[in-house]
């Protein structure tokens, strides 16, 4: 498994509230992924199995009606449907440039949060902020979060 720098992990907004041991636990289930320009990272309607954190690169997220937004920042989150029922991706994401992501499997993440309630609380709070913003975007553009 590729080593993940703890300082890098701590600088990600999603993980900034985690302590040393908790960071180590999260690091153990994260996998660095290199994506290439034009690569489809997730497809709308597919089962949401993996959640991503942006380290570098530029991404376009688009919905059924053609509405889209782009992500360019370190620490941005892709694939929040992984933690929201009914666990299928609600948008398609394409890499506009090559970039690096950290991927996290849904099952491993759920296993970890079931074992550690404090860690779960800290991460879910951050994820909920992202979900809230994305759902608000969805409601604004389509009037329907689904």
């Amino acid at each position, binding site marked *: 498994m590729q080593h993940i720098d703890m300082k890098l992990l701590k600088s990600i907004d999603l993980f900034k509230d985690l302590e040393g041991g908790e960071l180590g636990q999260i690091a153990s289930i994260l996998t660095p992924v290199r994506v290439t*320009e*034009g690569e489809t990272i997730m497809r709308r309607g597919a089962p949401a199995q993996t959640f991503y954190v942006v380290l570098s690169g*530029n991404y*376009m997220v*688009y*919905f059924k*009606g*053609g*509405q*889209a*937004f*782009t992500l*360019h920042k370190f620490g941005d989150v892709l694939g929040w449907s992984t933690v929201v029922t009914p666990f299928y991706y609600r948008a*398609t994401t*394409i*890499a*506009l*440039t090559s970039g690096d992501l950290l991927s996290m499997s849904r099952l491993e993440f759920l296993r970890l949060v079931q074992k550690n309630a404090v860690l779960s609380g800290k991460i879910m709070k951050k994820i909920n902020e992202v979900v*809230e*913003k994305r759902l*608000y*975007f969805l409601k*604004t*553009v389509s009037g329907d979060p689904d």
Partner: protein
Amino acid sequence: MNGLDAISANNGWNIAALGITIVFTGLVLLSLAISQLHKILTLWETKHLFYEQVKEVWQKKRTGVADDDRFLAEEQPPEVVLPKSLKKSADQFNILVLHLGEPFPLPKLLELAIKRGLDRPHSTLNHLIQTKLIVPDKLGFFHWNEKVYNCISEPEDE
């Protein structure tokens, strides 16, 4: 005096009608409030987003433009220097945008660019977004920024 006569003599009927009206008005208002409760709860849950919108409107009132629109509204946008190849790509994307009309869906523009065989459509599109030649509206669609497009120049040594 007793019974109905006493009620009539002391405005009993009017008082009863007023009482019924007050009670029913109260019930109607209460039911209306309950039926709209979900909106109040949604507003409460997304209050920070609401504050941001209010802040933006306030900013717009003070300066005449919102943060996101400021770049578009500037009288003299900064000159954008693009490499020759990107200037050419911007011209090609501009033709596609004219074909699509505005506002346009970004994925559709990318799809067209791929179909027409434009060079590295994904990264070019990203570059056009980063240089604010293509700007988002608030509804998930995008606009071509004519003001920036008119200010594009090529490097002198190329």
